[in-house]
């Protein structure tokens, strides 16, 4: 058995290290490590709990909006607050815009260079590393994809402009405040944003759809390669007026045909392989995050969350499976296609929510008081999957803050039973033609759209 280390795995958010054991040209075991710990949950300790909406957005500059929303909703849950219809709609719009922004970045900037040479990219391989050896042209039109990549960057800006118009700034929107939203959009602004959303939707329906399909056709073997075999989990997000989510939540266990309710009270995070003070797996509302860098039996700063003991895959594919919109092969290409289809759905929803904002009664937010004590949870979806924030308030200050991010699920290390995380499992059996250029492994990893600073936080 030979070992291969890939560190850093580039073109993803944050710092990821992979250790691969392979034999006979195929991966036998994979260990994924998040290599950067910042401790933003601990930074929240002792603070005004309303600060979480700003502090926790800094978990991730790619997907800050879902963190801001989860933080607001955890606080509102603890304080017993309901927000106005206007605030719900504004949050839906900025969160959906952040999703599509992130999906476009992932496909065109982070993923395509795994398959096509000649795209705009930084730090390109030198010619003697012969991209042709691992990126045969395979009927993909590199010139067209490069043109679409440039266009995708422009539509990302449209997504960011929508967030900026309604929440001040992107990344790290200041308009996500507990108790409501700060937007005061004029009719003219809303009309502008509707045009931008329509353009984003048109790009997602046409070019993005064509490109995702072309990629899947050019690399048919990746329909099956990279399936995780894990359960699929979604918390659900984008509530309608009646509270039901546009993207539903649920749990689909391996072998099950349909989703059951996911009971998040059964989530436990294991530190068996994570560099924190050892202890029994704990619920995120009480689990601690004390760094133990010298633990030789641990290999990652990512904890290992499990739901009733199950590792769970989360993300656009999981959301599609949970809602019944996808069945069948669940490998690399299914993840890329799910991301594209979700972009179409969300861009359309943004247009409809903008119309509803125009019709919604103005609802000045109140500045909410901080309760003396309480506990709350905010469950939502981020571009990369299910996201939960848990806050405990004592003496009007944050006494505990817990976050389980999408990539905490997907890139989790082994748990106390030795069960690997979904991404580690998805890599088992992947054939590597040339260990000096393990591009097959990188393709599988990238299909999860890993966000390691989210995973560790």
């Amino acid at each position, binding site marked *: 058995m030979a070992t291969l280390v890939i560190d850093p795995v580039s073109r993803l*958010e944050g710092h990821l290290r992979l250790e691969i054991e392979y034999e006979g040209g195929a991966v036998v075991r994979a260990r994924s490590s998040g290599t950067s710990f910042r401790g933003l949950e601990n930074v929240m300790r002792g603070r005004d709990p309303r600060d979480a909406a700003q502090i926790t957005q800094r978990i991730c500059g790619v997907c800050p909006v879902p963190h801001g929303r989860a933080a607001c909703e955890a606080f509102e849950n603890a304080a017993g607050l309901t927000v106005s219809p206007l605030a719900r709609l504004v949050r839906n719009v900025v969160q959906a815009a952040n999703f599509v922004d992130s999906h476009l970045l992932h496909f065109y900037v982070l993923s395509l260079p795994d398959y096509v040479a000649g795209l705009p990219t930084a730090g390109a391989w030198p010619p003697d590393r012969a991209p042709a050896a691992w990126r045969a042209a395979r009927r993909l039109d590199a010139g067209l994809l490069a043109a679409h990549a440039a266009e995708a960057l422009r539509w990302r800006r449209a997504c960011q402009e929508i967030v900026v118009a309604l929440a*001040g700034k992107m990344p790290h929107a200041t308009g996500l405040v507990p108790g409501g939203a700060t937007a005061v959009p004029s009719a003219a602004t809303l009309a502008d944003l509707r045009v931008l959303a329509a353009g984003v939707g048109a790009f997602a329906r046409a070019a993005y759809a064509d490109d995702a399909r072309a990629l899947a056709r050019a690399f048919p073997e990746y329909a099956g390669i990279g399936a995780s075999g894990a359960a699929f989990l979604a918390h659900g997000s984008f509530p309608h007026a009646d509270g039901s989510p546009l993207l539903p939540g649920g749990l689909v266990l391996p072998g099950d045909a349909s989703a059951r309710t996911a009971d998040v009270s059964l989530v436990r995070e294991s530190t068996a392989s994570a560099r924190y003070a050892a202890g029994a797996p704990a619920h995120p509302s009480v689990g601690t995050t004390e760094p133990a860098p010298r633990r030789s039996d641990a290999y990652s700063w990512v904890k290992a969350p499990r739901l009733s003991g199950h590792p769970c895959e989360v993300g656009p594919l999981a959301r599609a499976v949970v809602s019944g919109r996808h069945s069948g092969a669940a490998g690399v290409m299914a993840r890329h296609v799910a991301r594209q289809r979700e972009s179409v759905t969300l861009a359309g929803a943004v247009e409809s929510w903008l119309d509803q904002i125009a019709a919604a009664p103005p609802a000045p937010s109140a500045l909410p008081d901080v309760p003396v004590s309480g506990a709350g949870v905010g469950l939502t979806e981020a571009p990369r999957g299910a996201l939960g924030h848990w806050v405990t308030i004592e003496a009007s200050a944050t006494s505990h803050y817990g976050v389980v991010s999408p990539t905490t699920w997907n890139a989790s290390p082994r748990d106390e039973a030795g069960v690997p995380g979904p991404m580690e499992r998805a890599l088992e059996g992947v054939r590597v033609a040339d260990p000096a250029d393990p591009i097959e492994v990188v393709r599988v990893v990238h299909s999860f759209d890993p966000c390691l600073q989210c995973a560790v936080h």
Partner: protein
Amino acid sequence: MRRPDGPGRDSAGMGRREFLRLSACGLTVIGLPVGCLREDEGTPAADHLASGRPVSPQFSDARTPVLWVEAGTCTGCACSLLGSRLPPVEVLLPDVRLEFQETLMERFGAPAVDHLLSLAGAAAGRFVLVVDGAIPVGAGASLTTLGVDGRGRDYTAAELVTQLADRAARVVALGTCAAFGGIPSSGAGAGMYVSVAEATGRMPLRVPGCPPNPQWISAALGALLRGEALELDELGRPMAFFSSTVHELCPRLGSFRNRDFATAPGDAVRCLRQVGCKGQLARGDCPIRLWQGRSSCVKAGSPCVACTAPGFPDARPTVDGRAVGEEGKAASPFLRPLPL
């Protein structure tokens, strides 16, 4: 400590392309493959393009290399630049000789780290180092490791940033984490995570902001690569963007002067000071520069959190041993007013 903007310091290997000029003349290359901009110059890149082979702009390239290391980051700084509207990022990025940037680069694994280290050796004194994120040091240095080289050596963020800073022509501390320490260095992280200046002992060009406005990044980096002198303040920030406070440029300044205060975030016109706005602590031209040409925090009714200030999120009375006054006051709690 020496000023980071000594005129003429970038004497060799200047960027040939004036990428800000491109935005000034409104040039866009949407729809064209990277490399088209050089077609008229008969460069190797243009030859590649004519041959239909992949463009690899960094070879036979006389431009100043940029090595960008993300330490204890959230990637918000890179995402901000990736959202650059003017100049459009699809014009700007291909024009910068960006040889290492973990979020964007094609290379991965040990070859990427070897490339970074060998280029830092070969171009010693001639490359620009950009660092974003805070850096864990001392006993905590292993909290962030950034890669393994071809000999199997593991590099902490502190080792890599220090080694590269020693050889760089210029060091840019991008974002409030790299500039002052920011959120990772606050609260439970105090003493564990530090700024670039504290980690390397070298005073960087500081472009604070959480994240910085994309134009602050492109203009500062552009001036460095063109070898133009940047007028900097005593903390090494470009005066062009950081000479006024957010408060001084705020569209709600009139209602502040009339003591007409909003009672909740989201107020359409009134001053947001009493609901926590910290624009008096923060330097930056965001209210007039705007994000995506569209809005800013205060314009959108959201209290400024002073994300450009040394005091973001907690008090930091001194930077480089120099008292920073109002700017060092704590920006948090974000929704509580500053004492009058």
